[in-house]
């Protein structure tokens, strides 16, 4: 039996998926092991968030909502770390809470070392309220008081006696908030936090959500936008740290090139057919 050999342009479009997996894996592994240190430019959306926090008076309170779960830690956690770093370093009061059950302990692991580094006192300069369900309903409730919905913080301390909540008793008393989110929670802060309580906001979102929230930057509803690992890396650059986001940027670059290469490879036979069709159409015309 004679085995029929596929023409090369057809074979290029029908490689086994595991070849794609292998090349994508290698495109990530090599830059992680041998960094290229590609230069990173800070975009205006990210700079706008940084500038807003930087220019707030020292007496103001900023909320960083850790609205993500382990599935989006790689993109969101570096953003949350850099934002908390910035708020604490610049001497503003920091309030943290989350709409996700998994993220209370993650926030705790972020805040503790930063507080030690910048000598911030718990309950006076920063607080981790932990998780509470409710999303938009919770936010409505926070508009009247933090302590009613959060009688205790993540550590189990009573919030009634905390200095932070006598100075900033409700959501309305915030000067700025950033929602580091992997889902639609940003919508609640736009529609309630900003529209009803007048608290300006920015968002740090996963790359998937970038197109959706561009429209809110254009209307001015979002002060700025941190998008995906690149947004996180840009913020790391602004605060002067080199975290996991910066480390991942080289791998991200090379992996994108590999995927684009595969997209072109998959289209070789399609483009060939289009060209052949046009040539034959021209011949018929002649």
């Amino acid at each position: 039996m004679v085995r029929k050999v596929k023409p090369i342009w057809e074979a290029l479009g029908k490689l086994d998926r595991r070849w794609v997996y292998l090349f994508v894996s290698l495109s990530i592994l090599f830059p992680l092991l041998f960094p290229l240190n590609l230069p990173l430019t800070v975009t205006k959306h990210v700079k706008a968030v940084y500038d807003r926090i930087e220019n707030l008076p020292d007496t103001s309170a900023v909320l960083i909502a850790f609205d993500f779960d382990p599935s989006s830690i790689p993109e969101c956690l570096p953003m949350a770390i850099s934002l908390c770093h910035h708020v604490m370093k610049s001497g503003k009061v920091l309030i943290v809470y989350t709409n996700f059950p998994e993220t209370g302990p993650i926030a705790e692991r972020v805040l503790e070392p930063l507080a030690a580094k910048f000598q911030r006192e718990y309950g006076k300069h920063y607080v981790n309220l932990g998780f509470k369900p409710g999303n938009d309903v919770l936010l409505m409730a926070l508009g009247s008081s933090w302590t009613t919905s959060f009688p205790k913080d993540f550590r189990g301390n009573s919030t009634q006696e905390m200095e932070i909540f006598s100075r900033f008793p409700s959501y309305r008393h915030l000067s700025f908030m950033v929602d580091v989110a992997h889902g639609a929670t940003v919508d609640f802060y736009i529609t309630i936090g900003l529209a009803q309580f007048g608290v300006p906001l920015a968002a740090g979102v996963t790359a998937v959500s970038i197109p959706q929230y561009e429209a809110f930057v254009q209307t001015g509803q979002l002060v700025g936008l941190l998008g995906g690992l690149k947004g996180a890396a840009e913020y790391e650059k602004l605060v002067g740290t080199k975290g996991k986001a910066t480390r991942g940027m080289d791998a991200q670059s090379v992996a994108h090139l590999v995927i684009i290469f595969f997209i072109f490879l998959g289209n070789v036979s399609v483009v060939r057919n289009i060209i052949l069709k046009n040539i034959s159409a021209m011949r018929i015309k002649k």
Partner: protein
Amino acid sequence: MLRFTAIIICGIAGLIILVEFFFRIPLFTKLQNGMMDWVIILLSFSYLMGGISIFLSHLQRIQRKYDGWYYSLVLVVCLLLMVTLGIFVDYGPNGAFQWLFKNVQNPMQSTMFALLAFYVSSASYRAFRVRNLHATLLFVAAVLVMIGKVPIGEILWSKFPEISQWILSVPSLAAQRALTIGAALGLIATGLKTLLGIERSWLGK
């Protein structure tokens, strides 16, 4: 009658919120704040209901010796272990409960989503075909955004980041805005239908 009572409760709950928003009557503000706290508690019980439902369905699989019942047994043991550790033993940051969350749940949840990177790569290679004008537009936008959103794009051509940002903040923004407006209209209409008792699917059978 029972269904009608539920619809009335739903309507009154919604009405309190709407009256408070439009008229800011102190009594309604108080009612609204109280109701928000209640809803937070109710939502928490709905999480518990979800958890109990998973527990019961796997318990049934074990009892009836369904195919792969031993996996369900592992699931039930893990669930009970976490509940016991979290509620009765040590919820604190250094306890076994948080250790299991950090070293078992956390890496697995991250990895499950990381698998999608392989599938999306394979889909890019197999399904992204420039067969007509619309598919070509999709292709061009995807490639330009991919290349413009990483540092190497800027090295290859300094205009790539600008083009990528332009796609996101002009044509893509326009389409996303239409989707947002459409979704908002849909949500507002559904909300109104629910409060008026026209939309009743939430009542179940």
